[in-house]
């Protein structure tokens, strides 16, 4: 049997899935985005109407995009926090396994459970966060009940779950060749210089990887706000994916939701492309050096 035929057999499940659950649906989404489709009656061709409606919709579409853009502030934050924790956990000290587990634990909590937990933590009256703030004589905001504080509340909650990307940084740190550090030390490099010239370049492929996943995840942010705020108060947590879900499954405007999905697709490709393009400047691959 030829190797190509064998390969085809091994790849068959994935290839079939690719057609059924990826390529096919993308094309159907594109088609439906040019139709008015309200599920109960067949789709009706309307050309660019859905897109026109979206781009002139200052009530929902633009605010949801703006909110999502705000959420992108979290990316650099979680990058720095995740990396800092990984650096801290990469030291050779006793009991490290325990500390690693502790920082990773929040990432294991099911989203529904963490949504419940954070609703309670952020409770303006009896939540732990405001109790702590009051104990420190700091102002205690109403968090999810305030359009000003709802987004910071969500960012705070997400940072708690930074352990997922931390684990990946940690794995990468353990792969950085130790002799680089020894050589640098002989040359008299201080801690900051070692971080800047050895650690960060060595980690750059992983930072890149986490950044791409972060971009995609941010655009798709859904469950937490669906459960905790339903987009409120005053649409301050109406993020793009939540708005898309509402159009599709609450207002049954599948055509419009498909147009939103395509806008999302183009935005994701655009953002990913930007990260890729910039990566030539700051991502170093081991293989390329030699």
């Amino acid at each position, binding site marked *: 049997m030829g*190797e190509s035929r*064998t*390969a*085809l057999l*091994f*790849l068959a*499940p*994935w290839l*079939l899935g*690719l057609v*059924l*659950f*990826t390529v096919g*649906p*993308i094309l159907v989404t594109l088609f*439906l985005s040019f139709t008015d489709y309200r599920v109960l009656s067949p789709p009706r061709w309307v050309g660019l109407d859905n897109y026109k409606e979206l781009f002139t919709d200052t009530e929902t579409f633009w605010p949801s995009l703006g909110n999502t853009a705000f959420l992108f502030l979290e990316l650099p934050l979680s990058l720095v926090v995740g990396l800092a*924790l990984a650096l*801290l956990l990469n030291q050779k*000290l006793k009991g490290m396994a325990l*500390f690693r*587990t502790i*920082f*990773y*634990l929040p990432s294991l*909590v*099911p*989203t*529904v*459970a*963490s*949504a*419940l937990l954070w609703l309670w*933590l952020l409770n303006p009256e*009896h939540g*732990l966060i405001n*109790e702590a703030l009051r104990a420190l004589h700091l102002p205690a905001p109403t968090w999810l009940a305030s359009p000003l504080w709802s987004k910071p509340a969500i960012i705070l909650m997400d940072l*708690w779950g930074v352990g997922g990307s931390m684990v*990946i940084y940690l*794995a*990468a740190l353990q792969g950085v060749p130790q002799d680089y550090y020894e050589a640098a030390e002989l040359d008299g490099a201080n801690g900051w210089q070692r971080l800047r010239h050895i650690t960060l370049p060595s980690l750059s*492929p*992983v930072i890149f990887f986490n950044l*791409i996943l972060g971009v*995609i995840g941010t655009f798709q942010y*859904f*469950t937490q706000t*669906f*459960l905790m705020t339903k987009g409120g108060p005053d649409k301050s947590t109406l993020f793009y994916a939540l708005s898309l*879900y509402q159009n*599709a*499954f609450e207002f049954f405007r599948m055509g419009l*939701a*498909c147009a*939103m*999905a*395509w806008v*999302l*697709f183009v935005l*994701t490709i655009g953002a*990913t492309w930007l990260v890729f393009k910039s990566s030539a400047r700051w991502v170093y691959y081991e293989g390329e050096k030699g």
Partner: protein
Amino acid sequence: MRGIRYAVLVALSLLFLAPFLFMLSTSLKTPEKIFTATMEWIPSPVVWKNYPDAIARFPFWRYVGNTLFICALTVLGTVLSSSLAAYAFARLRFKAREPLFFLMLATIMLPAQVTLLPTFLLFRALGWSGSWLPLIVPAFFGNPFSIFLLRQFFLTIPQELSDAARLDGCTDFGIFWRVLIPLARPALATVALFAFLGAWTDFQGPLIYLHDESQYTLALGLQSFLGRHESQWNLLMATSTVITVPLIIVFLLVQKTFVKGIVLSGLKG
């Protein structure tokens, strides 16, 4: 120096643990204690009864059974289909390998929303909406992230082992099944853990496809607590604890293999 490092680690750990402790502590309080002004970490009295009360609120064991069933099949499907594809990408030479591999990586970056609606319409047309099939069947068609992870791992296994097996008359499937799969256990465990966590915590899938309360998963069943029982924070926190603890136990059991799987599979880049 060592002392300062420990102090920083302990302080940060407490910060990360505090929400859990708050959850535990609340889950053991009487309703009156919850709304008192000052924080009481160890409640008195400790109300263990909140736990049986909380899970008596909804068909807890049925939801556990539903979730475990979906998880088991999802894990099986993901591991089988992804490792097959990973073998082809790691070990077989064929013309379209590079473009197909790139295509697969590209699908990792695809927003789920782009395929969500037609997939929903497809399953509805098949009459699968309102059943577990939409949550299970796609797992048998390979998961790009898992394929990538396993492929990276297979590449670290010496080619000589495959060649030796081939000289002994092994087919590709034989090499895959008897040589690579047994050696790839850490990576397979990592993929299985990710698949398990994904299925156990999935919310949007069950939300869209399940309509009958008897079919609900834990994540979806828990949602009904929000809003309906909002003032009973002690019971809510007991329920959250109950669905979180199994995951922590599973993680502790596989932790070593899991970290090894990530390191060895070269996910580090």
